[in-house]
């Protein structure tokens, strides 16, 4: 310290405090740039979401404010005496029914595949299998629609007939099963195949992240492999599995082409899964009617789209709530 007092004229070395200060300002610039980009990207999502919501409300407004009789007069496919809500209701019902069916079929299978890949398959088999599952996700939905309608549906018919014959006493499977099977059950199966890859891929990643510590804790207590999966892997992956299912549900809710190409539409609140001409989904209905709709008709279709938007938001919120409810018990802390 005393030496610097005696030689004040000596120039400061470039690596001194001053150098640090200069470097910090240039790093600050990079930091600010990064933070601005990240904030901007985050804001962009909100802006897009808001833009979609505003568009839906504005364009659906004419249909929502037109009196019911006028609406039914102006739009050929809204029956006399029906309101807009009366028109949207069965569509919402059909959309939810198809998506729930798909989810009920896909989630157990996807969980099984994911567990097999992450914990049962020998390593040499596990990664090729993972690739194949990812590949399924890359097939366009119109292809699934063609495959489902032309190839799968005829082959499902015997199964539906068997269900109707043997379980027909349950209203869900009331006989006779429609021929050809352009029914909601077939749609459910095809949608299940479509959402299987995304659910499997996410679930697999989640299961693979189970801490080795927890797995060994279970094994050291004398758990078999299945008991280890039940004690450590599934509880740890539970919230991730719910997220995976919601991703799948989102895709099933919005799926258009496959439903459009398979389902014989109808507008009822019917739980008869094997009957044709009972159900229709919002997305497929829009695709079906849009080309020939007059301006008020387009507005009515957009109103159904608004309903789909709200459903999807509600489903995602519900999923978040389910995940957050047991946050303390999640593996994250």
């Amino acid at each position, binding site marked *: 310290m005393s030496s610097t007092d005696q030689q004040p004229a000596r120039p400061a070395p470039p690596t001194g405090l001053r150098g640090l200060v200069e470097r910090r300002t240039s790093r600050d610039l990079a930091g600010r740039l990064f933070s601005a980009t990240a904030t901007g990207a985050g804001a962009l999502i909100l802006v897009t979401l808001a833009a979609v919501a505003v568009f839906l409300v504005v364009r659906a407004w004419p249909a929502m404010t037109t009196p019911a009789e006028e609406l039914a007069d102006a739009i050929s496919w809204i029956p006399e005496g029906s309101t807009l809500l009366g028109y949207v209701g069965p569509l919402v019902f059909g959309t939810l029914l198809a998506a729930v069916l798909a989810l009920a079929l896909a989630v157990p299978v996807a969980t099984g595949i994911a567990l097999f890949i992450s914990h049962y398959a020998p390593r040499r088999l596990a990664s090729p299998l993972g690739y194949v599952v990812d590949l399924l996700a890359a097939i366009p939905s119109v292809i699934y629609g063609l495959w489902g309608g032309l190839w799968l549906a005829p082959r499902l018919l015997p199964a539906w007939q068997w269900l109707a014959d043997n379980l027909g006493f349950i209203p869900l499977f009331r006989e006779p099963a429609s021929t050809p099977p352009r029914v909601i059950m077939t749609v459910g199966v095809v949608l299940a195949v479509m959402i299987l890859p995304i659910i499997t891929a996410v679930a697999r990643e989640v299961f693979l992240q189970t801490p080795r*510590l927890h797995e060994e804790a279970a*094994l*050291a*207590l*004398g758990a078999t492999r299945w008991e280890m999966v039940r*004690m450590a892997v599934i*509880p740890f992956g539970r919230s991730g599995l719910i997220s995976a299912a919601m991703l799948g549900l989102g895709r099933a809710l919005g799926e258009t082409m496959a439903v459009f190409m398979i389902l014989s539409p109808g507008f009822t609140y019917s739980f008869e899964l094997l009957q044709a001409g009972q159900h229709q989904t919002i997305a497929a209905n829009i695709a079906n009617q849009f080309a020939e709709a007059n301006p008020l008709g387009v507005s009515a279709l957009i109103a159904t789209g608004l309903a789909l938007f709200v459903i999807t938001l509600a489903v995602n919120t519900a999923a978040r709530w389910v995940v957050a409810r047991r946050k303390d*018990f999640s593996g994250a802390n």
Partner: protein
Amino acid sequence: MAQRIDLKDLNVYYGSFLAVADVSMTIEPRSVTAFIGPSGCGKSTLLRTLNRMHEVIPGARVGGTVEMDGVDLYGSDVDAVAVRRQIGMVFQRPNPFPTMSIAENVLAGVRLNNSRIGKDEASELVERSLQGANLWNEVKDRLDRPGSSLSGGQQQRLCIARAIAVKPQVLLMDEPCSALDPISTLAIEDLIADLRSEYTIVIVTHNMQQAARVSDRTGFFNIAGTGKPGKLIEMDDTRTMFSTPSEQATEDYISGRFG
């Protein structure tokens, strides 16, 4: 309840790599046996062969015999799962199941053996095990809170409670205090002293003072160099090991001259 373990000519492999070579030793019942030695000398690996946790790692295998009460744990008719139910294990890092409450954690192993345990019986077992692990007074008012809400030392004692709830013959501890502060370490060491009267305990530790404090017998392991197998250099009463070991290497390690 506690039983002796005899190791004969035990060789432990990871794939083709020989990690521990030619270990023969006897672990006495109702005593604490400590394994000490430098990092990578195979103490933890050897410990994990005692309850067949070693083979959980792909490619891992074992040659030689590990006999508990005359039965070879690696015999062809012995199920690894059954072995692990008899020989409990506590790990280096506390690992309570995060999705289970404190009480459920204690019961986790019991439920594997007997899922139909009654409610009264269960709560009695939870209390007895937590008392056995010196944790009861700290958690008795929050048994339904997640196990991960406890401090590190409490979590480790919860893991011990979970291990002793199934009444094992043997308790293996793999550096149970290395992730804990001195006060929690003291609590665990007191607990080991208490548990000694009922269980056969084998503890791996990097802390030589700890080995000297808690164990009756000590085994010293060493490796000749990287890539060479770990070997048991010497095993004797702890007092002898820490005062007049017969091997120079043991004395060098204990007096801090290497390792």
